[in-house]
């Protein structure tokens, strides 16, 4: 099948066409020709042309929860892939927030096999501890050999420093990546929201940012000792950005991500006990938000993720204490990030955070927009203004505070594995 993309601006720092407005001819999933806009006259099956069209290497979201197996009523692999495609992502890394938790080879293979024909590449993170119990190592190598791209105890993080150290050292044997969610449970106790005057007024149980900072410090130290790499799940506190900055100066090989919603939402939104603002890590202050944005600008934070966390209505529409943490984000992550950052980061810098850096961190080949390369592409429009409507949501769950929110920037479609998925909304 021949597809022609007409007059699109290429955003790809590794391509010689970067920044140029071009026509791109794709045949059977391979980029056949890249040429000056309006110059390709081939007869094709499909033409994609739109005002303000941009094209970049396919986006990659390294933190999504697809809930299958175990919680398919919240999200299954197919609905998750549809949401990812609509959000412009050609690749995702799923967290082991399943039941049972992904901690063996067969579970990794189940997800890989079931999603093989999808236009979205689904990579899998397995748990670092056996059965997500936080006591012994899981069979990390066996999972790695079956395609697991990273290891993490996700949001029930390893409290035992010795186990974390052994995980880092063991993964180093075969080049596996350990992802740490910085959260010291003995300090956070049963906290639901950030410690602040806002939460004090509401009588909500609080988790101070020191719970994040102290765990971040521990794991940076352990990674330094083990002389290996480590990646941090979404950070939320200003002090965390500084700790990471200092660690980088000491040549500790640490990378980090931030969840897109943390760039626009802060804790002052909690006053109505709206559970759509109950997320983990919690929404923090405006100062923290500004520090996260500066961390992105300075390159201290490498990646923007959606932290897509589908929850059914029974788990969200209830008392704040009992409601589940998390919001869905695949379809809004880019729009949210672009809206928050468009005056601060260039489009190319944003594309690095949602496409190139995550793949580099996970050691996955980065697509390049050059002739004879596989077409793994995202089409987007960074200037398009739009409003999220509930009917557009592809997820099985609708837990998002962004319904009715106006954004600037939208994914228009993806091309991957010879398949084209256009965002029809």
């Amino acid at each position: 099948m021949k597809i022609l993309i007409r007059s699109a601006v290429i955003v790809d720092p590794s391509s010689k066409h970067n920044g140029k407005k071009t026509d791109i001819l794709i045949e059977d999933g391979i980029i056949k020709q890249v040429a000056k806009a309006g110059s390709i006259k081939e007869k094709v099956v499909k033409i994609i042309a739109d005002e303000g069209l941009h094209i970049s290497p396919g986006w990659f979201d390294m933190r999504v929860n697809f809930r299958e197996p175990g919680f398919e009523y919240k999200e299954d692999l197919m609905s998750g892939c549809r949401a990812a495609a609509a959000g412009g992502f050609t690749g995702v890394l799923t967290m082991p927030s399943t039941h049972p938790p992904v901690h063996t080879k067969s579970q990794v293979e189940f997800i890989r096999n079931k999603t093989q024909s999808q236009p979205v590449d689904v990579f899998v993170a397995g748990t670092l501890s056996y059965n997500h119990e936080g006591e012994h190592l899981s069979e990390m190598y066996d999972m790695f050999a079956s395609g697991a791209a990273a290891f993490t105890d996700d949001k029930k993080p390893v409290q035992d420093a010795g186990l974390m150290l052994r995980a880092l050292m063991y993964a180093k044997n075969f080049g596996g990546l350990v992802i740490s969610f910085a959260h010291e449970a003995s300090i956070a106790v049963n906290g639901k929201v950030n410690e602040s005057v806002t939460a004090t007024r509401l009588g909500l149980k609080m988790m101070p940012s020191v719970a994040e900072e102290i765990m971040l410090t521990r794991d940076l130290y352990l990674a330094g000792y083990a002389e290996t790499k480590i990646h941090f799940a979404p950070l939320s506190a200003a002090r965390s950005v500084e700790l990471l900055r200092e660690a980088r100066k000491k040549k500790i090989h640490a990378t980090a991500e931030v969840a897109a919603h943390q760039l626009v939402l802060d804790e002052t939104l909690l006053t109505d006990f709206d559970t759509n603002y109950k997320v983990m890590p919690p929404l923090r202050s405006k100062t923290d938000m500004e520090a996260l944005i500066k961390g992105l600008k300075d390159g201290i934070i490498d990646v923007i993720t959606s932290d897509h966390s589908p929850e059914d209505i029974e788990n969200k529409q209830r008392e704040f204490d009992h409601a589940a943490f998390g919001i869905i984000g695949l379809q809004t992550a880019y729009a949210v990030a672009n809206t928050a950052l468009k005056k601060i980061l260039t489009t190319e810098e944003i594309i690095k955070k949602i496409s190139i850096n995550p793949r580099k961190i996970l050691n996955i080949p980065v697509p390049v927009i050059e002739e004879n390369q596989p077409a793994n592409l995202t089409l987007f429009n960074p200037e398009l203004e739009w409003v999220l409507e509930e009917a557009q949501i592809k997820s099985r769950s609708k837990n998002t505070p962004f319904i009715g929110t106006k954004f600037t920037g939208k994914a228009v479609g993806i091309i991957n594995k010879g398949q084209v998925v256009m965002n029809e909304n």
Partner: protein
Amino acid sequence: MESKLSVNHLLGIKDLNASDIELIFTTADNFKEVINRPIKKVPSLRDITISNLFFESSTRTRLSFELAEKRLSADVINFSASGSSVSKGETLIDTVNNILAMKVDMVVMRHPNPGAAVFLSKHIKARIVNAGDGTNEHPTQALLDAYSIREKFGKVKGKKVVIVGDIMHSRVALSNIFCLQKLGAEIMVCGPTTLMPKYISQLGVKVEHNLKKALEWCDIANMLRIQLERQDIRYFPSLREYIMLYGVNKQLLDSLSKRITIMHPGPINRGVEITSDVADSAQSIILEQVENGVAVRMAVLYLLAGAKN
């Protein structure tokens, strides 16, 4: 003066303004006179059905509300969580909607989770009175406390009130802070650092960890109960040691340079936050608080029912 509240529900003192509180007080003055008559009942809420939903145990608040409702001639139905459908896994919305389907006009609810009353007000059609929601607010308690101060001193403005104890787990402390501040009192909180929210001073209150200093400063000391049931972990080594640092006994009270007034929201742990001789002393207005509770709750119910039309 306004004759209507600015709110449709009493979810928290946060939502009220000073004239709302004054209106509740002047209304309560009338009801206090009524409940001291030989015939204590008035027909104000005839044809109004009120459901008391208590998802958490309570003795005095529940009795106080029930008495207030009955003296206003409302029809009352009671519900408590134990032995009900809640233990069968029914959600809060379903429980309440089922009760409302029986045509209830007002709901008085106590619940263990902060924000439960706000949550309810967004999902059902009835006037809601928050009778305590977790560690968030207990507005009628704060109103009756401030009313009792007003009764004893003639006014609240300018009075110095210290709240002593487990500030972190206390809805009474929070509602009292908001209420007394709106009326112009000065507030101090006193307790161990582990039970003190880190940012509490940003609410405009003084923070003191030395009990003797706090008592020397104040006109009124409101002694909170230690809420072991709300503490997930142990914040102090033993009750014995807590008493050594934060218990008020007669000897301490007599050692102060002035006579202060002692309040307590109840139930008292005698010998913990205050000793019996303090609780029963002439300086204590604990039983006046209980009496005023009925009048204040009558005022709140009466005014909210009026807001309906």
